[in-house]
């Protein structure tokens, strides 16, 4: 399921790049796992590693005990920041199977731009 979300963003990545939006994934997985998965699944955007969930905690998107062997992992969550680092759109799902779709972020981003600009 995680794969289906990241894959959907990879498929639409050119549209994010064309708009100057950087896409990054964040999870507790270590860099070597992220490297292996990126190679295998063809992800070209950064997958950032937060093994102690420090950043995940800072964003309050921790899902305690939900990982393998009761490990703390991130819950699915998506944020769209503007160029000043201000949150302009956020998706905090209440169902692990339901994730943000790339078109939602692209739509939210297009609504940030004043008309004609």
């Amino acid at each position, binding site marked *: *399921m*995680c*794969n*289906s*979300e*990241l*894959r*959907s963003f990879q498929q639409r990545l050119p549209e994010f790049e064309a708009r*100057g*939006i*950087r*896409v*990054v*994934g*964040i*999870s*507790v*997985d270590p860099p070597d*796992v*992220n*490297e292996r*998965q*990126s190679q295998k699944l063809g992800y070209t955007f*950064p997958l*950032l*590693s*937060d093994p102690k969930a420090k*950043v995940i905690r800072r*964003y*309050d*998107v921790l*899902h305690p005990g939900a*990982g393998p062997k009761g490990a703390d992992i*991130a*819950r*699915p*969550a998506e*944020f*769209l*920041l*503007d*160029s*000043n*680092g*201000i*949150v*302009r*759109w*956020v998706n*905090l799902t*209440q*169902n*692990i*199977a339901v*994730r*943000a*779709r790339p078109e939602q*972020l692209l739509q939210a*981003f297009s609504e*940030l731009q004043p008309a004609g600009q």
Partner: protein
Amino acid sequence: MKRRWNWPIWAGFVVVVAGLFSYGFFARFPITRDFPLANLLLFGIGIALLLLGLFRAFGRPQIYRGKILGSIFAAIGVLVVALFSYEIFYVLRQVPASAGAPRIGQKAPDFLLLDQSGKPVGLGDLLSNSKGVALIFYRGFW
């Protein structure tokens, strides 16, 4: 007299099992992932066939076989559907509320993390020379 093969109990069981194991496939597409319609449809067809088989087995036992096997398959089928529903409609919805997550209009907390090549990437790096940043927190590949 040899009784006839009660095919709906076999077909129903196979369809229910297919409904369970096809979840991994249908979860790859947002439309069948957000709501598992395809799987529920297969369960519905499978259970209907199982019921048809049971009606035949118990209604006309002199013609059709499958009283015992049909009952076992139907019980397993109902169990599979119940466990699937519990997982999809209860377990997957036990997500923390994240009341303290950054809200619209707030500045996103800074971070510095290693990417897949071991290179440190900070929020500042992502924001420089970009018009926006999409942060996708995900559960992981395990």
